[in-house]
């Protein structure tokens, strides 16, 4: 299915109708009364009813064609059956915005970029898209975790029904068995590739959403003369580099001071120059 060809269909439908309307006007035919307010219809009521009926028929035909084009589920192909199945798949229900809405957002956010147009809107739409992705990934992660809890319950029930296992003589023993069983199940899940991948994906999409939120916040900051996070990071980076250079200089200075001065051939240590002395004191302080 290609729901995104729908706008082209709508355009075609609208253009055809407009063409018909202008043609009718050019040919001196009567426009519908709701199209020309205040003017009385020129034909008989019978003619008017016939015109309306024809107009409605064409509309219905165009919309039907459009719907078939945009919603191939109705045409009976394999892809359509899978689309139909999707409607009844609980996994799809639990994913916020999965499917068509996501694709619509993708189309909007990945379309052509204009220099001064819709920049903030694009950021907001992108945040919406990333939020949906994040929600989907959280749902996928939770599905894996829920499955592990279900396995834990099943194993616990099996353990309770194990005729070879020792009896449980207290509520605490019962609780301890549950804790040990569930702990093992969750650990197995935590080590599984499926869980690690779901967790990684969820962390990544949450991160991307957070970064997009920052872009929006920064757009607001820029509008209101407030320093942005990125600018603060840049300033801090500059301070960090300066501190690092200062420490290196201090160390260099201390190293020079700590080093014994080269002994002249006469055996006498030369008197340090006043300027060098002042500098050494400043660096070492």
């Amino acid at each position, binding site marked *: 299915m290609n729901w995104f060809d729908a706008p082209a269909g709508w355009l075609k439908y609208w253009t055809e109708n407009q063409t018909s309307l202008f043609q009718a006007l050019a040919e001196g035919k009567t426009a519908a009364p709701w199209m020309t307010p205040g003017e009385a219809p020129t034909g008989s009521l019978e003619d008017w009813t016939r015109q309306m009926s024809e107009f409605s028929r064409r509309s219905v035909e165009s919309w039907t064609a459009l719907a078939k084009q945009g919603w191939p589920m109705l045409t009976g192909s394999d892809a359509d059956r899978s689309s139909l199945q999707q409607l009844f798949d609980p996994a799809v229900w639990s994913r916020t915005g999965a499917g068509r809405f996501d694709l619509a957002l993708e189309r909007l956010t990945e379309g052509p970029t204009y220099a001064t147009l819709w920049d903030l809107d694009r950021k907001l739409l992108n945040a919406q898209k990333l939020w949906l992705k994040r929600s989907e990934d959280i749902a996928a992660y939770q599905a894996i975790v829920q499955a592990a809890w279900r396995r834990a319950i099943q194993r616990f029930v099996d353990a309770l029904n194990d005729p070879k296992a020792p009896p449980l003589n207290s509520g605490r023993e*019962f609780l301890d068995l549950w804790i040990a069983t569930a702990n093992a199940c969750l650990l197995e899940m935590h080590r599984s590739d499926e869980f690690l991948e779901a967790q990684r994906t969820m962390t990544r999409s949450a991160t991307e959403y957070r970064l997009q939120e920052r872009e929006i916040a920064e757009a607001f900051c820029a509008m209101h003369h407030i320093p942005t996070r990125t600018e603060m990071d840049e300033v801090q980076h500059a301070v960090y580099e300066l501190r*690092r250079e200062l*420490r290196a200089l201090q160390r260099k200075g201390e190293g020079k001071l700590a080093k014994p001065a080269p002994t002249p051939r006469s055996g006498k240590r030369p008197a340090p120059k006043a300027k060098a002395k002042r500098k050494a004191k400043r660096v070492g302080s």
Partner: protein
Amino acid sequence: MTGRVQVDPQRAFAEIAEFNRTLAQGLSLLDKTRDRDVQIATTPKREVFRQDKTVLYHYEPMAKREVKVPVLVVYGLIGRYTMADLQEDRSLMRNMLGQGVDLYVVDWGSPTRTDRWLTLDDYIDGYLHECILHICREHKLDAIHLLGICEGGVFTLCYAALHPERVKSLTLTITPVDFHADQNTSAPLHHGLINLWARSLSPEDIDRMIEANGNLPGDLMSFVFSMMTPLSSLTKYSVGLFDVMGDEKKLLNFLRMEKWLADRPDHPGEAAKQWLKDLYQDNKLVAGKLELSGRRVDLGRVRMPVLNIFAQDDHIIPPKSSQALRQHVGTKDYTELPLPGGHVGVFVSGKSQGILGAGIVKWLKARD
């Protein structure tokens, strides 16, 4: 429910009565406990040096000096050094001071977003180096004893490789060395999960995470740690707390540990990238490919005496990861001291108290 559950009604009543008694007693204890009753890191010390957020403390002596050369304790950036001084009767610091050690500790402070650019180079070759130089100057010494804990162990190990002339001996506790040693082992399920988690991320995931947060959030690391013991993490404030709430001493121990756990700082961003990518993912330390301040960290240059202490049931740093050190260091004076218990248990459990401090001091005395 089934044949396996065979609870005698009389015993069930007794269990319920005991439950109610413990609950009432525990609630009463919790009600009268105040934050001031739950103090950690109380061993007296004074600040002697500071650079940016890094502070060097010198502990007040508690006994006649038995080890001449001072010992500098270095913790990592994941968690705080206060774990080694949790309470009076469970404190590595007090144990060592009581046996005549002149003791210093580095506190890295609580990094914020402004510290996101700090690298491991800055911590090891910058702040740590400055602290060591300060102690050397104060005591007119060329070298001192270093004692690294966990990530701080990696810091001291790298430092010893870069500046061997400043390190008289190196003691490492629960320190990861081979970050891939968790693979192909028959260790328990919860061992090495942090290694697996770190490798599951792509380098770009890590970069983006740091870009978004500035630092590696302490809360995220707490979450990763809790994944290693899922049910005890989930039932900590129900079953775990209930188990100790009837006993004031146990309850206060529990609350002190909670206080330490709650004080998990964020890990500076650039340093976290190196920690996760260079070490956990690429295992550069044992491959001899780790570079700090433009110099390769060559473990073969670690020729001073080395004491390597690890926990036999350490789920965070698998013992094999620590033990790998033996084959990489250049020293001939290498000693291993395996201790019972887990990662934190080595420092806070009653079992290891006598062994840890005494073991270190005995080893130091022989090399002082």
